[in-house]
């Protein structure tokens, strides 16, 4: 590997000037053969975050005239800059998707400044006005799909105890936990959601221990927010509990136990991006959306989901898809310490920036953020 990198670097030092010259002549629309680069932080068939992006990349491969290059397990260090440079200089990539959160600053921003004619799209919603205009961020309000999962989980749980295996108490994760818990309370006002933080994005033994501990506490429906939900899904199903998935559809792992899940819908979004560029439009630097914008979706219901649960979940989903939208975090919201976190009368909709700073767990969640 190291030798490969060194020789590549030498190559690109020579090639950089040439390619830059060629890039200045590039038009906004795609030529006959356009190359798109995808960079993943982990393995692209992890049944999780990276697989969701790889499914998006696979959707692009089907479009004629597009060539997709991919590299897996690129750490969030200057290694990603080298990968980006080699994709640009050796493969001729003109649109890049460094998909992991930590790739953005300083790595992707630096590359976007260095190659001002190329497009960079980052998953995570970190773009700000100070960043280069050829860089962009997109992200999905996956809490909407978690809310639907919560409704289904609330109906499916016999004990009224739900479990959530989470990585770290950061706003995005807390938002998912809260949405899941609020959804569950819609179905069963007494439902509680117990959360366990494992401390990192990929800790299979901790995730398995967390799953077992939750089930020992009487939890009978679990979901998670970690990079690879496979461990939780398989271990919960073995113990006879039911699961809601995350990132991608995990039902092949546990067909009987799988209720539904919150999935990314990158295979719908990425072709849209490509069409926008081909049509000469610019992709908004800050691109976000939820179920309505087809950035997230829910897994098909499993056989264990009751007709009542399906109906309620479908009704709420229809509200998300409607023109008016639907606010999960409504006024009068109390956290699990009894403090009012959203004053009565103010509904916080999907795009409300206050929700990006979430640092609380709502009433009905058992657990603490620190």
């Amino acid at each position, binding site marked *: 590997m190291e030798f490969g990198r060194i020789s590549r670097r030498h190559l690109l030092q020579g090639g950089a000037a040439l390619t830059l010259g060629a890039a200045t002549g590039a038009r906004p629309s795609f030529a006959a053969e356009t190359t798109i680069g995808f960079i993943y932080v982990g393995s692209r068939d992890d049944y999780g975050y990276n697989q969701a992006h790889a499914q998006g990349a696979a959707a692009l491969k089907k479009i004629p005239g597009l060539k997709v290059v991919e590299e897996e397990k690129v750490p969030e260090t200057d290694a990603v800059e080298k990968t980006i440079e080699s994709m640009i200089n050796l493969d001729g990539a003109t649109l890049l998707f460094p998909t992991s959160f930590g790739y953005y600053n300083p790595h992707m921003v630096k590359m976007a400044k260095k190659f001002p004619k190329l497009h960079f799209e980052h998953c995570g919603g970190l773009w700000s006005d100070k960043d280069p205009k050829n860089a962009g961020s997109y992200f999905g309000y996956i809490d909407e799909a978690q809310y639907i999962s919560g409704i289904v989980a609330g109906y499916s749980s016999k004990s009224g105890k739900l479990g959530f295996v989470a990585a770290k108490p950061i706003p995005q994760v807390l938002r998912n936990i809260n949405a899941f818990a609020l959804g569950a309370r819609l179905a069963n006002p007494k439902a509680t959601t117990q959360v366990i933080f494992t401390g990192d994005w990929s*800790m299979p033994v901790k995730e398995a221990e967390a799953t077992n501990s939750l089930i020992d506490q009487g939890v009978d429906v679990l979901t998670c927010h970690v990079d690879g939900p496979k461990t939780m899904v398989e271990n919960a199903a073995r113990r006879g509990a039911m699961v809601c998935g995350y990132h991608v559809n995990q039902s092949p792992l546990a067909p009987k136990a799988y209720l539904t899940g919150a999935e990314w819908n990158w295979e719908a979004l990425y072709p849209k991006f490509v069409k926008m560029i081909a049509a000469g439009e610019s992709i908004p630097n800050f691109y976000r959306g939820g179920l309505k914008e087809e950035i997230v979706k829910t897994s098909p219901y499993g056989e264990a989901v009751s007709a009542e649960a399906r109906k309620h979940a479908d009704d709420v989903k229809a509200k998300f898809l409607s023109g008016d939208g639907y606010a999960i975090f409504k006024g009068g919201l109390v956290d699990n310490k009894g403090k009012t976190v959203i004053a009565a009368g103010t509904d916080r909709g999907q795009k409300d920036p206050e929700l990006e700073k979430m640092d609380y767990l709502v009433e009905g969640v058992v657990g603490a953020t620190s």
Partner: protein
Amino acid sequence: MADGSIGLWTVPLAVLGGAIRVSTPFLFVSLGECITERSGRINLGLEGTLVMGAMSAYGISYLTGSPWLGVLAAGITGALLGALHAGICSLPRVNDIAVGIALMLFGTGLAFYLGKPLIEPTAPRLPAIDFGWWSDIPQVRAALRVNVLFLIGVALAPILYWAFRTTRWGLLIRTAGESSDAARAMGHSVLLIRLRATMVGGFLAGIGGSFLSLFYPGSWNEGLSSGQGITAVALVIFARWDPLLCLWASLAFGGAAALGPALQSVGVTSGYHLFNAAPYILTLAIMIITCSPKRTLTGAPAELSITR
């Protein structure tokens, strides 16, 4: 109770269950390393062996449908990696620690490369023996679902303890580890003894890996080991190269790993990072309590490159 929860009892039960579930890889790797180090060589590459074992066990179990063949394959893979380590180390002026680090990287890298197509499929797992049949509390039953490999590991510890003291080959390994000159004077090839000891060590570490992928957590992915092989090697040092202490140390580590999630599940949520770090704090504490600047570690084989 009526709702199926057992309240605070979850914590001791989870620690017990965790000790049984999580400790097995520690146990096998540390017993294997114990044999290797007693012969006078350190194999730091067991992290790589563990991951290779996990990957090959999963692959063979998936391809043949028999998890036991997977366990065997993991053992053989481990023995081959052990032979590689011993082979390189038998060359003159080769540092076994450096070779171990190289093999650790080689083993994990090779396992990730070969294991790529194995992340998605689901392989048949090892069966568990239900020791909780006497209880009608499902949590107790779940905690006492014990895998045969754990029992083999538990039996192996006293057998090794006995073997090091009383059997011919046990004494030979110790002779090679305490004084290679003495072993040579007795007419034995030190290199051959160390080759065998490293291979057996690798075999056991490979089996430890098969437990990870075939029983608990029970699937192959790249974060599976997250340093358990290295921890187990360190564990041998604070178990003072004693197989019986290796057993207790492994159980303590397994239980400590379960402590963080279990405490959170009963509502002790403050400082979960600290509880998640429990195994490492335990290591540090034991190291600090037992070390002394005035003498070398008691029980350390004299031929080890760290004591020499």
